[in-house]
């Protein structure tokens, strides 16, 4: 996989069309909200429809079959790809079909229908221009909506020139004209038309397809036999249920209120035009077949943990939002469905083993979940996928060593890092940064300059639990997290200082361990639970009113994941709930502690704010840090993609330093383009990544936690 990542990142043509775009100013979701689209309302509606439909699937299938049969369609239920392909091939052979036109369908790509028919000697012509390009290149679609978005104009011109036997210029209009002319004849000559289906409606036996090019209308209307090949998960009960899907599918794919053509097809063409002979076959297809395909979908439905993947409407919004996809593009994943959702689908269509590599690419930034019109928690499914493979195959020796032998035991971690703090000396520059390291950390140190391990970590600097004060000042326990504890102890001190000034009593409970995120996201649930218990116990010390962290990844663990980890653990679950209720982000707590403080006079320094993934999308906190900074007199210049991932992603930086770097470079470009002298953020690992990356660029821009900024000011 690392090799494929490398190939993608060094493919100049690919990078010129993918990574070269830089970060969008705002996310798709924000854009929709700004243009008055009720994204939240519509996505909740889609979620409801999908949940109910999948729950009620057996009944809907029967209802669909009855209605479609009444309309004169033939319905075939296929177990898997082979079964579906074979049905279509047999039908084609029986009708003596020589040429088939096909509109775009991810399902037919999934089961490789075109290749199957071609092998049997039948010509199959893709009619969506993007699909046609991919067919000419003998490739798989790179994106579920834009199959050929990776092809440069020059490449397209070469492919189309070869196909049409004409010398075509790499000019969009010329290429479009050529495709139009070439494809038109195929529709006219074809003996069969094949489409997928975006939605199928049980009550009327209807197949709904959305297209923009008009190829869908021609494919489904001109040839005498029409076949729709559709996955079971596309079933909805009625027409009203389809409405929200139509709206958001159109929005998410093309930014339209509705795609240009929405065809609802309910049976073969018929006419009453010849007097006295009603119901004759009309000018369109005389036969309509609907092939309903399982191919792992029933297993997904039964799995419980991964049922959500069936709610996917294949809009591709998550791919556009994914920092990994937009860096390495779809082919790197290795299977037909791309991105995080693709990893889950791959697990059921190709096997758990095959899903491991694609799942390993996920940074866990949650950008996909944020834009999903069906509210699918893709990152959670990725974590469960990793947990399942740990269950089945165990951890790799490296992970076992790191997670179970060291991270799990605070004393061993402290010991190991103590040794590290001596070993690092030859590599540490005067400013305490490490810019070169020997293998196996060589490539990491080439990507970002690393902070040195502090010989005096935070836990050795702040000590002691205060006694219960009579004035009842709020007691705030600091939870450091590994990065702040060992790399940036001064950050913890700054938090303590600022909070102390608000009248709170900050302290550092002993016995804290790593929050468990590295283990949890690697799928090692057992170790993560162990660490959860250690921390729940540690953070009960001194009975704090609040617990504050400088790492939102840790905060999200304490506040959310500990609850699910301790779900079956009786008393521990109650203690986890008590803990979760106390966890605050630094900015959130400062605002809570100091209500009604007046805005300070404007400062010279212009700053930009980087939203940590786990703070914004994990905990929903993005307004508070900005409010606090503005109250302190700072003018925030918003960079493009302020909430785009920095590329750290825990394990990613170790497993795929090149990928981490590619994601980071776009972020750094956005930061530099903002024209500020300071980047403020709320996360120790983000600071490590951004400082390290900017240092490699020899940039003067400083990266700082809001607590440090405030502590320095006062």
């Amino acid at each position, binding site marked *: 996989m690392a090799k494929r990542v490398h190939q993608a990142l060094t493919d100049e043509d690919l990078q010129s069309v993918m990574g070269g775009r830089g970060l969008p100013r705002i996310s798709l979701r924000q854009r929709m909200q700004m243009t008055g689209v009720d994204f939240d309302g519509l996505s909740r509606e889609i979620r409801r429809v999908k949940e109910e439909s999948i729950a009620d699937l057996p009944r809907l299938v029967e209802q669909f079959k009855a209605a479609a049969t009444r*309309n004169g369609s033939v319905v075939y239920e296929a177990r898997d790809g082979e079964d579906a392909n074979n049905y279509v091939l047999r039908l084609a052979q029986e009708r003596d079909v020589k040429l088939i036109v096909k509109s775009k369908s991810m399902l037919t790509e999934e089961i490789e229908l075109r290749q199957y028919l071609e092998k049997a000697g039948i010509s199959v012509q893709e*009619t*969506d*221009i*993007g699909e046609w*390009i991919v067919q000419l290149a003998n490739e798989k679609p790179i994106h579920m909506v*834009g199959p*050929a*978005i990776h092809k440069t*104009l020059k490449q*397209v011109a070469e492919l189309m020139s070869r196909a049409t036997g004409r010398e075509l210029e790499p000019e*969009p*209009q010329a*290429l*479009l004209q050529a*495709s*139009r002319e070439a*494809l*038109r004849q195929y529709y*006219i000559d074809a003996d069969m038309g094949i489409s997928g289906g975006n939605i199928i409606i049980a009550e*009327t036996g209807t197949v709904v397809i959305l297209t*923009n*090019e*008009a*190829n869908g*209308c*021609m494919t489904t*209307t*001109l040839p005498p036999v029409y076949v729709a090949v559709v996955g079971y998960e596309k079933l909805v009960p009625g*027409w*009203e249920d389809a*409405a929200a899907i*139509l709206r958001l599918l159109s929005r998410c794919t*093309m930014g*339209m*209120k*509705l*795609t*240009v*053509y*929405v*065809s*609802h*097809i*309910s049976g073969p*063409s*018929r*006419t*009453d*035009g*010849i*007097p*006295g*002979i009603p119901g*004759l*076959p*009309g*000018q*369109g*297809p005389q036969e309509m077949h609907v092939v309903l395909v399982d191919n792992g979908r029933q297993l997904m439905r039964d799995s419980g943990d991964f049922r959500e993947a069936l709610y996917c409407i294949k809009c591709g919004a998550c791919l556009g939002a994914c920092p990994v996809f937009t860096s390495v593009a779809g082919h790197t994943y290795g299977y037909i469905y791309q991105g995080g959702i693709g990893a889950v689908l791959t697990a059921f269509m190709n096997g758990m083993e095959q899903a491991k590599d694609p799942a390993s690419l996920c940074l866990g930034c949650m950008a996909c979940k944020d834009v999903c019109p069906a509210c699918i928690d893709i990152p959670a499914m990725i974590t469960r996928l990793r947990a399942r493979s740990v269950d089945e195959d165990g951890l790799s020796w490296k992970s076992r060593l790191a997670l179970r032998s060291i991270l799990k035991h605070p004393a061993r971690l402290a010991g190991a890092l103590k040794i590290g703090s001596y070993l690092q000396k030859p590599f540490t520059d005067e400013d305490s940064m490490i810019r070169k390291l020997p293998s196996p950390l060589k490539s990491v140190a080439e990507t970002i300059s690393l902070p040195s391990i502090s010989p005096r970590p935070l836990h050795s600097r702040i000590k002691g639990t205060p006694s219960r004060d009579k004035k009842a000042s709020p007691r705030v326990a600091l939870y450091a997290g590994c990065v702040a504890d060992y790399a940036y102890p001064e950050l913890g001190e700054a938090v303590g200082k600022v909070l102390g000034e608000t009248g709170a009593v900050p302290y550092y409970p002993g016995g804290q361990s790593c929050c468990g995120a590295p283990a949890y996201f690697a799928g090692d649930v057992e170790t993560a639970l162990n660490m959860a218990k250690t921390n729940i116990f540690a953070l009960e010390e001194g009975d704090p009113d609040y617990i504050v962290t400088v790492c939102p990844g840790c905060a999200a663990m304490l506040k959310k994941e500990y609850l699910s980890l301790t779900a079956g653990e009786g008393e521990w679950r109650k203690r986890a709930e008590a803990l979760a209720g106390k966890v605050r982000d630094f900015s959130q707590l400062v605002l809570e502690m100091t209500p009604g403080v007046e805005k300070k006079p404007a400062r010279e320094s212009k700053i930009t704010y980087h939203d940590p993934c786990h703070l914004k999308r994990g905990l929903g906190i993005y307004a508070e840090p900005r409010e606090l900074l503005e109250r302190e007199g700072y003018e925030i210049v918003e960079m493009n993609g302020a909430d785009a991932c920095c590329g750290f992603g825990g394990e990613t930086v170790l497993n795929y330093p090149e990928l981490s770097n590619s994601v980071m470079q776009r972020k750094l470009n956005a930061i530099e383009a903002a024209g500020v002298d300071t980047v403020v953020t709320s996360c120790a690992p983000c600071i490590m990544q951004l400082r390290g990356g900017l240092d490699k660029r020899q940039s003067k821009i400083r990266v700082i936690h809001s607590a440090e900024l405030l502590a320095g000011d006062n």
Partner: protein
Amino acid sequence: MADIEELVEQFKADATRTGAVVYEAEGAGDARDYVLKLAQERGVRHIVKSKSAVAEGIGLREHLEKAGIEVRETDIGQWIAQLAGEEAGSETDKTVEQVAELISRETGQKLEPEGDVLMAAARRFLRQSYINAGMGISGADFGIAETGTMVNLSNDGNDRLATVLPLIHVTMMKREDIVATLSDAISRIKTLVEESGGGQIPSYITYHTGRNTTGDIRGALMARAQGPEEEHIVLLGNA
């Protein structure tokens, strides 16, 4: 119930934004002239037309034919009426034998008075008309204001061919036939299906919004992919 003027305004705004040209005709004559002028300016000689109460109501076919443009009805019933020299929109009362004669004469082959034989000939003959036509004219069962969409219900699918195959597509629609939202459209469809189809859902219900586009070739989102180059919508009042 939203005000018709408001719905028309919103329909116009969205249809225009998505690449259609909306013309609000002052009356029947104005509507006829708009279509004729458009056809003449673009040098259109052949037109395919699907059933449209608006077009039939204003004698559009006859108007275009008088100006020397060939207009072919593609709804089978309307085509037969046209072959019989009957007025557009009328229901033909011919027998199957008479129909066989009409179609035989038009297609130049001797056809038996059997449904399947006649339809096979009609299909072949009309298919060529769609391909040759420079303009397609269709009606719309109704429009949707919030999206600028036209909705068509049909069993034959001839409207779909007349809509996407020719270079220019013109929709004739009544101002009063615009509903507010997609949800209203679904209610309207259900009513239409109950009223005219006796509960049987039509084979094709097509929502059509603006001009066809593609983003598949790098560079930009390009207007006109594989369908018509121009979309015109002629809105006509009740009076």
